[in-house]
């Protein structure tokens, strides 16, 4: 099978997109990966390894492996800061994209971190967590005050390397694609609508925030004062299994990642007291039974979803819940609350589905090729969490399996 004149465009450079890129590139196919953020690797690349001394199979390291694999392939091209604009043709397709030039010059940036400290909007300046592809430090256009007419230039002015250059320049381009693979991933649920004070109380953070804290600071530091949190609550199913919001799905990964994080924190902070508020504990991994038993022995498992969180005068968090043991309303004090936010369909799914003519499922995900009961466009495929919640290992499976379908499809043409 000679596929070296075939082109595939993958939309999204998360763990699924990168895995598929590696597989397809092995068959001499020319692969272009469009990534809208400044860095490849998706959500997975920002996760922390949760091994204590033994690997707990969270899969976070896989993202790193797949990314460095994809970078090494000569026939894989990753376009960062690039969004698909439209798609035309009947297959082969023409994919039209728009690429923003990076605001940080990678050759000049030495990673000193001064810009992080100067930036007044938290989260605007990102530091890549992955082997270098393009810039290692990047500025998010959507949050940056320079682009918000406020003309803030603090980072540019303080950069000793003169590496920051504000510009709105974008170049348009197009790619020929014999097949298009959608790997746009998920959007984390925004818990601001829940009564947990997210966005109001800084010590209420999401599970993704917690991953980054553990990765960057080793210990579970509180955002308000940098103190190591000793009493920590995890609240599960924030945004998932939520019939009121119409979210009739389990996000699948949160029980596993939160319990693993809880055990990781306990391995690093001997006296950490952790409470876990849940509806049902979901199975994860082959060693679930022994892991769960150990977790039950060390973590206070409370089968209830809290109703309210109050920030006390002592800057602690008072969590109010209905206690199933005493059958009464209770409260407990914590230093930090972690909300296990659900995996929502990617914000751009509707537009993407419209552009491609792909049917969305009842929940708003883009189901894999095999599942919709209606016709789907030829030569278009979907993988990873764009199709529904899944773990890193499952994203890898989904990508490999779909790569086989794509190779089969391209070979027949």
């Amino acid at each position, binding site marked *: 099978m*000679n596929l070296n004149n075939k082109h595939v465009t993958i939309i999204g450079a998360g763990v699924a997109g990168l895995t598929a890129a590696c597989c397809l590139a092995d068959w001499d196919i020319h692969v272009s990966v469009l990534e809208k953020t400044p860095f490849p690797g998706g959500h997975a690349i920002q996760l922390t390894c949760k*091994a204590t001394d033994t690997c707990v199979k969270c*899969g976070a390291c896989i993202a790193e492996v797949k990314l460095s694999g994809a970078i090494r392939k*000569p026939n894989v091209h990753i376009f960062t800061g690039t969004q698909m604009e439209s798609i035309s043709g009947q297959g082969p397709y023409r994919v039209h994209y728009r690429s923003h030039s990076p605001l940080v010059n990678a050759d000049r940036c030495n990673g000193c971190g001064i810009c992080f400290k100067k930036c007044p909007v938290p989260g605007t300046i990102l530091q890549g967590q992955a082997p270098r592809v393009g810039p290692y430090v990047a500025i998010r256009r959507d949050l940056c005050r320079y682009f918000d007419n406020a003309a803030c230039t603090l980072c540019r002015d303080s950069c000793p390397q003169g590496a920051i250059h504000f510009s709105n320049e974008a170049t348009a381009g197009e790619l020929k694609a014999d097949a298009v693979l959608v790997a746009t991933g998920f959007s984390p649920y925004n818990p601001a609508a829940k009564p947990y004070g997210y966005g109001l109380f800084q010590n209420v953070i999401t599970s993704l925030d917690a991953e980054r804290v553990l*990765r960057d600071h080793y210990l579970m530091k509180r955002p308000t004062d940098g103190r190591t949190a000793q009493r920590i609550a995890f609240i599960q199913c924030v945004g998932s299994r939520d019939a009121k919001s119409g979210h009739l799905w389990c996000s699948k990964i949160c029980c596993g990642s939160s319990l693993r994080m809880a055990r990781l924190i306990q391995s690093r902070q001997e006296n950490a007291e952790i409470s876990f508020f849940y509806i049902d504990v979901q199975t994860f991994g*082959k060693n679930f039974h022994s892991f769960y038993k150990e977790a039950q022995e060390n973590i206070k498992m409370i089968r209830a979803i809290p109703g309210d969180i109050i920030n006390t005068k002592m800057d602690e968090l008072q969590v109010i819940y209905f206690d199933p043991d005493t059958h009464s309303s209770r409260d407990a004090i914590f230093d930090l609350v972690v909300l296990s936010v659900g995996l929502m369909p990617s914000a751009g799914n509707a537009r993407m589905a419209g552009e491609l003519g792909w049917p969305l499922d009842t929940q708003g995900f883009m189901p894999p090729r095999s599942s919709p009961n209606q016709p789907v466009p030829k030569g278009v495929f979907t993988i990873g969490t764009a199709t529904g919640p899944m773990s890193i290992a499952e994203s890898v*499976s989904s990508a490999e399996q779909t790569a*086989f*379908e794509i190779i089969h499809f391209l070979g027949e043409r």
Partner: protein
Amino acid sequence: MENKAENGVRGKESLSAEVMIFGDSVCAQRIAANLVDNGIGVCLAAGNGSSPASIIQDRVQWLSDTRLNHCHGFAGNFTLQIDHGHNQLKKTVQAIVVAEDDSRSPNYSQYRLTPGLRVVGLSDLEEKLKHSMTESFSGTDTRIVLLCGWRKDAHPSVARRMLEGCLQLQAQPGVSTYFMTGNMKVASAGSEELVHKAKQAGTVFFKFTGVFPTIQPQENGYFTIDYPDESTRNTFQLTADWVVVDETIEPANHLELLIQKLGIDQDHIGFAQSDNVRRLSNFTNRRGIFVAGGSRGVLSHAEQLADADQVSLNVLSFLGDLDGEPLAGVTIKQGLCARCLTCVRLCPHRAIEVGSRITVITEACQSCGICTAGCPGRAIEMEGVHIGLETIQRMNHLLAITFVEKPRIVVFGCMRSAGQSHTLIQVSGQALPEGVGFVEIPCGGTIAGRHLLGAFEAGADGVMLCICHTDNCQSEIGNVVARKRAESTRDLLASAGVETERLRIVSLSANMGNEFVYRIKAFIKDIVLLNNPQKENKNG
């Protein structure tokens, strides 16, 4: 993006090979069809008396009533001796796929039930529903209680099937269903929606935490179920006409023997793949042997079919790679080899062949170097790996640039974990603390006691050995042997009067750049105290 290796691409135009598949599961048959479609010859060793589905009939060599007797050889050239009925058969294949079905058994004992007329296992229920044999369930006021994951949590795919069965039963005229569970497992795609649908259809759900109901069979064949109600904290009673129990999915009985004969690793449950993320998704410790479907874990029907496509891709890629560049060579120097077979016992990839000479099979070798460090005759060499020499160079450099009072540390780190973390901190503009020399090694298992002692000899104040976390070694045992070797080196240090704390073993993963630095700094602090014990006394 510029400095990409140019030899990464290879042609897969002409694959002519034969693959052996063990198993006659739906997964196995789909793999066979996929491979045949790609021009690969397939021989399928099926169980007793089964016959091929029409899609692969006449296209594969179908052997029923088989038993693997012996597997010899290596990736690209396996020789299999198979008992086939009363005959012996010899096959040479390039790759092997294990795709045996799993084994499913109803969980009677978990609910203190015995098999009986009105106790139905999940698979039986599905058969009955499939063939519309549901008359017995319908009638006036038939109560069916479904028991799912009490003291032992159900697998999500099993829970999903229980929910599907429940919905179908609830739709029968005159039937009311009751679903009793511990943790409601909804992590399978669509399960939460099924729960919602079942509730709307009238199924009553009971969830228990810690305390579970008791089920009493009655003389008339029915059951009384006393259950604790968690919101009112009273005990209620329910009479059931039928009870449906969930099931446990385990590896097939004969899988163990196959695993032994093929020399592949097993997980703690008994599936034919160690529980190691580096084996994702279909790989084993042996190159050229793959595992799929119900042989590698609990997979739903849809997942098994998907797995078939995935393993097909992996097999085809492997076959295409066979003509490609081999990994860095490991060679055994014949003059020094005493045929002690230590290397054969150590090799996790079964890459060492015992013939008239002991040789390393390049196609199977994964260049971990566990054998080089373990060989008592030091007869095994690894191309491009000179740990001792590199250590001395690093130390000489440190001795030249570091102040005398600062400790000098040698850090050995596996290229798959600490090596990656080291790159991470470099690209983020950080540097290793002063006085630290990093020596990247192919695997923790490449380190021998002599390398650790060599670092001390060369003038190191402390040596840190960074290995992958337990169960996360590419070569399965590299981190385990590294730990053992380091621990016995500690004993040697102790007998030589050197503090054992000067040798530290740390486990790391590929994305722990910050932790890597954190651990090194903590080590330096301890070494400083060891170097200046008076200081400690003063402070303490």
